[in-house]
């Protein structure tokens, strides 16, 4: 990982790139820095804290935020006194590991790679160029990014919302002091949407930033949680765009449960109320009436834009960009830039939120990996294994290491005393006090001590096991000890760092913690990690675009794939679609992709096939399938569920009664067939949200707005004098699809908004099809006579409970599959070895389905790549079948389906745990009434031993 580095230039081509990188000086040695913060404590330098949106100050030597990776300090050369004026140097003196290096120099490094992934991200729009919002002049107008920090528990106000957030907490300047006197807890906060988005009058950003509606709703809800229900939150918006999974429910909750006001409007201006710093907002409501309202604070929901540097870089690399500066990608290769071998992920691809960016990242990784497939594993080295010492039955001989962590622990806790104390504890053979337990020389010494003193259990009292346990476990293995003969206790994060002002108590606490750890370690046993055999074949369920993309990615990297498709051809719902919003011919492309798949030796396509049963778990699945009536069995190691969704069959607006009322897919069919009927028509009307966003289906189907707008443009282009109307609730052409919305309006497509309470009325009068609605601007009823009525129907999940049961994966209320994590695991299930992509997860357009297909493949590849070193954890549950009463509580309670009843043998009917599926949570152990379940590594007697060690008399 190269930090503080900048890409300067790229030479060469796919498979053989040479990349020049400018490495800026950090002035801190990454290998030596232990992140203790002693430097920052002594640093007199001050600078604006960018992470906190400059709302507070930070030191000149700093880490950007507590979760930064790597958690290493850096010196900001612009404010450091040593670097600017050659004074100070406090940090150098304070650093316990001599990591500070003021002579660090900028350097250019060249690296060779086969492919490149660009993920340079975005910058929030700077609203200071708008004079009507007065962001630069009014202290109570903030950007959503600033507000995000204000809401954060680690932010400048620790999550407490106050006005005057930009004024320092302890003001020094006279002007700040004056302003600080006005500081109060706000009673009313307003959010303005689309600041720097969907706007080509005051700025050049025609695109919708896709994320601001959701974050504004989130900020409003959290504000109410922080400040109490009396806080009045209002969101001023044009269209509420919450098309993502579960977003619509969130929006509905914001209105109904949290009482947040949504005001459909255009904001005209903000002015300060004289004598206060309150803000008067002047806006035009939906009817065009001017309204005024006073707020304590205004939050500008600033959009996403691509910074100049990124555009310059892209230009230099010959990467084509959209008008908004986003990377041009095609629908069918959604993470490939116009330069072969350069891939793209995140907001530079298009304005998108976290789940989409994560999917992009996975997809780009697999696309980039396709190119590298031939070179895989050519640079790997094999580790030498040290023979294991058998310690079973031996009396515990515990070695205790009390880490000083420089002065981080020693500065508060009397480590020498704790070490002496440790020596007196039962079974302790040896105790030492290294300056840094994690340093390489201590590790080497530890191995020596283990051998020399014949130690068979190790306790380290240092920092957190969450980061350092694996390191020490490796050391144990190097010394021939099983890695579970190790116990770590946290006397830094949980002790010295948090009880700085109470060293006596901290030392006492450290002794207690060490005693507890020692007593637990005495009971630890070597645990075995079972090797999981891995079948390298993958089954993809569903031969739509998502499934096909997953299969192609997997096959490109040399894995054998079975595609199970219940229809008689590949393509799924995409077979019914005309063109993508980018204008690509879907049928033509599908045909070539299907041919490509059929010619691919690695992909076996099973058409007219259904799955009858599935058994097994990660690495070892087995399914019985029926293909064209014949039954057979296939074995595989991982599964990708890409079963898609289907179109809702409408039962309203005269559908089925009048032939002129059709669905979106019917219109696509007419367009594919180039139907002569279309040319005879003089008018067409679209009704949006047919079956979506209502009580039956409270979700947004995501794709229909863009689909209808695009088809309206098609109709208008075919026949410019055709009258085209779109009746909508919110137009949700997110991202650069917004440009289509604008194009449609420019072409004369008329958009009319309706509410759920006032749905359009469709009837046949004297042979004509008449649509009655209400004009949302004039408030007058209107009638449209139309030759064609297109219903933008909802996308309905298949709700395939059988399949969900086969793979032990969950379905949500609506019947969509539930992914592992909404943000961080969007292409996989919580069940190991099972992956998800396509509209079975949630309705999505083709490009997003393909991205998710590639992402699912990428996640599967990560698993398949571990073939030879995939092990179960040692800390899993184990059943003592002698005690098991077969009550079945464990089988019912386990979220991972690890326990099951044995079907044969001596213990038939008793429970057993599959260690491959077990995550070691211990839920079953706690629930077992017979005491038959044990959790290795966290066994009941081990936890008891810690409790027993609590209050031992010293």
């Amino acid at each position, binding site marked *: 990982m190269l930090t503080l580095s900048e890409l300067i230039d790229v030479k060469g081509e796919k498979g053989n790139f040479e990349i020049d990188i400018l490495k800026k000086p950090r002035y801190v040695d990454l290998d030596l820095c232990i992140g203790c913060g002693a430097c920052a404590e002594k640093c007199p330098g001050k600078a604006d804290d960018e992470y906190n949106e400059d709302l507070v100050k930070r030191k000149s030597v700093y880490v950007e935020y*507590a*979760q930064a990776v790597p958690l290493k300090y850096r010196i900001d050369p612009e404010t450091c006194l040593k670097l600017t004026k050659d004074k100070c140097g406090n940090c150098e003196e304070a650093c316990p590991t001599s990591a500070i290096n003021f002579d660090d120099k900028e350097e250019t490094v060249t690296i060779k790679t086969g492919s490149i992934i660009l993920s340079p991200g975005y910058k929030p729009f700077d609203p200071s160029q708008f004079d009507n919002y007065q962001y630069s002049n009014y202290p109570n107008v903030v950007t959503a990014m600033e507000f995000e920090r204000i809401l954060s*528990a*680690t932010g400048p106000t*620790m*999550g407490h919302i106050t006005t005057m957030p930009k004024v320092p907490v302890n003001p020094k300047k006279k002007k700040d002091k004056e302003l600080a006197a006005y500081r109060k807890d706000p009673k009313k906060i307003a959010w303005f949407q689309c600041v720097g988005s969907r706007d080509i009058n005051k700025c050049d950003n025609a695109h919708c930033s896709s994320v601001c509606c959701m974050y504004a709703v989130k900020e409003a809800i959290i504000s109410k949680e922080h400040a109490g229900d009396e806080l009045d939150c209002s969101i001023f918006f044009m269209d509420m765009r919450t098309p993502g999974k579960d977003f619509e429910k969130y929006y509905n909750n914001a209105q109904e449960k949290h009482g947040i006001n949504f005001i459909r409007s255009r904001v005209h201006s903000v002015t300060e109320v004289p004598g206060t710093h309150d803000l008067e907002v002047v806006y035009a409501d939906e009817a065009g009436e001017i309204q005024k309202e006073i707020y304590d604070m205004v939050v500008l929901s600033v959009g996403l834009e691509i910074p100049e540097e990124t555009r310059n870089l892209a230009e230099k690399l010959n990467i084509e960009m959209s008008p908004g500066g986003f990377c041009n990608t095609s629908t069918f290769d959604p993470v490939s830039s116009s330069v072969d071998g350069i891939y793209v992920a995140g907001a530079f691809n298009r304005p998108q939120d976290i789940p989409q960016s994560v999917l992009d990242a996975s997809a780009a990784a697999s696309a980039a990996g396709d190119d590298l497939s031939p070179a895989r594993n050519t640079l790997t080295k094999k580790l030498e294994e040290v023979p294991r010492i058998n310690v079973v039955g031996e009396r515990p001989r515990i070695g205790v290491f009390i880490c000083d962590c420089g002065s981080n622990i020693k500065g508060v806790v009397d480590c020498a005393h704790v070490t002496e104390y440790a020596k007196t504890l039962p079974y302790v053979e040896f105790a030492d006090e290294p300056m840094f337990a994690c340093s390489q020389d201590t590790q080497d010494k530890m191995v020596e001590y283990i051998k020399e003193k014949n130690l068979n259990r190790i306790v380290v009292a240092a920092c957190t096991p969450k980061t350092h346990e694996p390191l020490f476990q490796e050391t144990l293995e190097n010394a021939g000890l099983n890695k579970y003969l190790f116990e770590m206790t946290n006397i830094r994060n949980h002790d010295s760092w*948090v009880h700085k002002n109470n060293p006596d108590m901290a030392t006492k606490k450290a002794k207690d913690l060490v005693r507890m750890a020692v007593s637990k370690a005495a009971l630890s046993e070597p645990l075995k990690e079972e090797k999981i055999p891995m079948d390298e074949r993958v089954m993809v369920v569903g031969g739509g675009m998502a499934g096909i993309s997953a299969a192609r990615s997997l096959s490109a990297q040399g894995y054998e794939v079975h595609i199970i498709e219940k229809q008689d051809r590949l393509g799924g719902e995409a077979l019914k679609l005309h063109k993508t919003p980018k204008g690509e011919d879907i049928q033509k492309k599908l045909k070539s992709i299907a041919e490509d798949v059929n010619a691919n030796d690695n992909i076996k396509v099973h058409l007219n096939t259904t799955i009858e049963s599935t058994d097994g778990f990660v690495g070892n699945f087995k399914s019985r399938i029926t293909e064209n009536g014949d039954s057979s069995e296939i074995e595989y190691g991982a599964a990708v569920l890409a079963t898609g969704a289907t179109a809702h069959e409408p039962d309203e607006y005269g559908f089925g009664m009048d032939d002129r009322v059709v669905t979106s897919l019917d219109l696509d069919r007419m367009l594919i067939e180039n139907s002569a009927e279309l040319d005879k028509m003089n008018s067409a009307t679209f009704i949006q949200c047919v079956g979506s966003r209502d009580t039956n289906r409270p979700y947004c189907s995501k794709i229909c707005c863009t689909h209808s707008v695009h088809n309206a443009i098609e109709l208008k282009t075919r026949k410019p004098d055709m009258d085209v109307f779109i009746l909508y609730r919110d137009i949700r052409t997110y991202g650069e699809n917004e440009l289509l919305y604008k194009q449609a309006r420019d072409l004369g497509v008329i958009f009319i908004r309706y509410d759920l309470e006032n749905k359009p009325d469709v009837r046949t009068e004297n042979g004509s099809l008449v649509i009655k609605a209400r004009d949302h601007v004039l408030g007058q009823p209107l009638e449209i006579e139309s030759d064609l009525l297109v219903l933008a129907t909802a996308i309905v999940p298949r709700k395939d409970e059988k399949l969900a049961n086969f793979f032990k994966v969950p379905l949500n209320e609506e019947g969509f599959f539930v992914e592992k994590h909404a943000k961080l695991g969007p292409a996989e299930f919580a069940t190991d070895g099972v992956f998800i992509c396509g509209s079975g997860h949630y309705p999505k357009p083709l490009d997003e389905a393909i991205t998710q297909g590639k992402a699912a493949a990428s996640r599967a590849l990560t698993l398949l790549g571990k073939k030879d070193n995939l092990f179960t954890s040692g800390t899993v549950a184990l059943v003592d079948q002698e005690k098991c009463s077969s009550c079945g509580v464990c089988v019912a309670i386990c979220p991972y389906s690890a326990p099951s009843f044995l079907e044969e043998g001596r213990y038939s009917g008793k429970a057993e745990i599959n260690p491959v599926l077990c995550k070691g949570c211990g839920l079953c152990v706690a629930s077992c009434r017979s005491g038959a379940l044990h959790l290795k590594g966290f066994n009941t007697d081990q936890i008891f031993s810690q409790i027993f060690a609590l209050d031992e*008399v010293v």
Partner: protein
Amino acid sequence: MGNLIEHIGIERERIHFSWISSAEATKFVDVVKDITEKVRALGPNEKFKKIYN
């Protein structure tokens, strides 16, 4: 659980449950302070304790 410990004669305020995500350091500290304060007010627990003689 609260009922059980009350049943054996321990004050309900001596047992606490909470849910804190790994990012909520401030909440963690608030909860620790809150519990410590409450328990200090109660004083040491003298009931249901094993007596060492």
